[in-house]
């Protein structure tokens, strides 16, 4: 879960930052896991949201 560097000096070369992800989990499998979790969250939210919506309609049919 750590950050990929503890020193930015080596990542600045020839007058520019190098082309590299600078987020937490860069260079590891973490982004894939975050993406998977986010996708599952969205699907679950849609399922739960739809159930709530159908319940609302059922009460007023």
């Amino acid at each position: 879960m750590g950050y990929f560097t503890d020193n930015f000096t080596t990542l600045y070369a020839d007058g520019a930052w190098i082309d590299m992800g600078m987020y937490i989990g860069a260079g590891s499998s973490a982004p894939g896991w975050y993406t998977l979790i986010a996708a599952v969250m969205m699907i679950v939210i849609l399922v739960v949201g739809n159930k709530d919506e159908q319940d609302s309609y059922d009460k007023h049919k």
Partner: protein
Amino acid sequence: MEDQILALTEQLAAVTNAAQVTNTMFAETYYFLSIPLMVIIHAGFLLYEMGQTRVKNVLSSGIKNLLAFAFTIVTFYLFGWWFYWALPTFPYDLASGAGYMGISGIEYANAIALPWGDSAQYMGPNMGDHASGVFWGAFALFAATTASIASGALIERIQTVGFVICAIVLGSFAWVVAAAWGWHADGWLVTEFGFHDFGAAGLVHAVAGFFALGILINLGPRVGKFNADGSANRIVGHNIPLTVTGLMLIIVGFFGFLMACIILPGEGWSWYADGGTTIYGTPMTLSALAFNIVLAASGGIIGAWIVTKDPFWMMSGCLAGIIATASGLDVYFGSHVIIIATVAGMIIKPCANWLEGFGIDDAVGAVTIHGTIGVFGVVVLGIFGSGIPGLGAFAPEGTVAISIWGQFVGAVVMFLLGFVPGYIVSWLVHKAGMLRVPEAVQIKGLDPVKVPAQAYPEAMISSETEA
């Protein structure tokens, strides 16, 4: 002497580097600022849609619109962006390989547009990448715009989650395929047919408009819209000033939308070092847009006024004027724009009435304004723009020019890419019981049934709801 030359060379290198940094930061800022401008489109659609809704359904319409925005953005990140880069050559190349420019195909998309693996570095903060995020952001807002376009047509009787599913298919798949084919230098509609759609009349507006038509067929009209003999009743929204103001905000946002359609010079991803272009690499300037957008907006208002005298249709005409000229905003002359936009403004109400005659309840005229006028704009460019080179100076030899045939083929493809997915996904959602709000709930009002808030708690109570 040699020391002086060496010193000058170093100074020149430093100045060149500084100029490049400035150019890069300007380009990043330019596209970044187009994003909040496009958010204004959504503020406009929100007001437009809520104003056209009766009091008993106002907040439900707002919720639907907000969720269309949010889910389209998220899913465009998860998979929509990938389709844009993966599919330009498909199905001409069934393997979906790279096109002439080398910036397309499944392999390329896998390298830059997936939020996992090695390509994740281009789907999040990156130390040296000033382009991916702002381009993605602009495209994500294009995607959300398609969902908002469809949203208004469906108000007061579509279920929220069912609509969100349709919006995801539209914003993160259907229009993206259209963009890959017709709004990418490697797209087969561009390379094989010379299809030209600078401002996305076809690939955003027509696709979204006809996607809405596909949904409307399965969704059916609002309760009380049509009489037993087939004649239509006019269901009046609760706040026309809100709607008209919303439409004006959409126009404001269009400036951001259209400025983001220009490829700036001087970057690694630019067509040229010293001149702006369209996405096709053909010449383009912001000055051209300044002339043509405001003239198109004005022509559309005037055309709609002479036919309808109705402020709702006048502002819809304003939209229609821009959409009708959007494909060729880079090549039309100002007076030419006035003519096309005025005609567009004049025909929208008759076209909407014609559609209503088939029992289609399009609550805001989205199918006509975006779908019909989008196709009209694409084809009109073929009539007046035939022979204009379809791609810029770095295009392969024998590149096809703009033609009536190419624009016609593009218009048909845009219609199909909108209507077919819209019909299929809404049919599936309908079969799952998630499309149409029950009639008893429509009569009572959606807000009292499923929204824990009131739009106007003290000032306005819907007589229909009370009844």
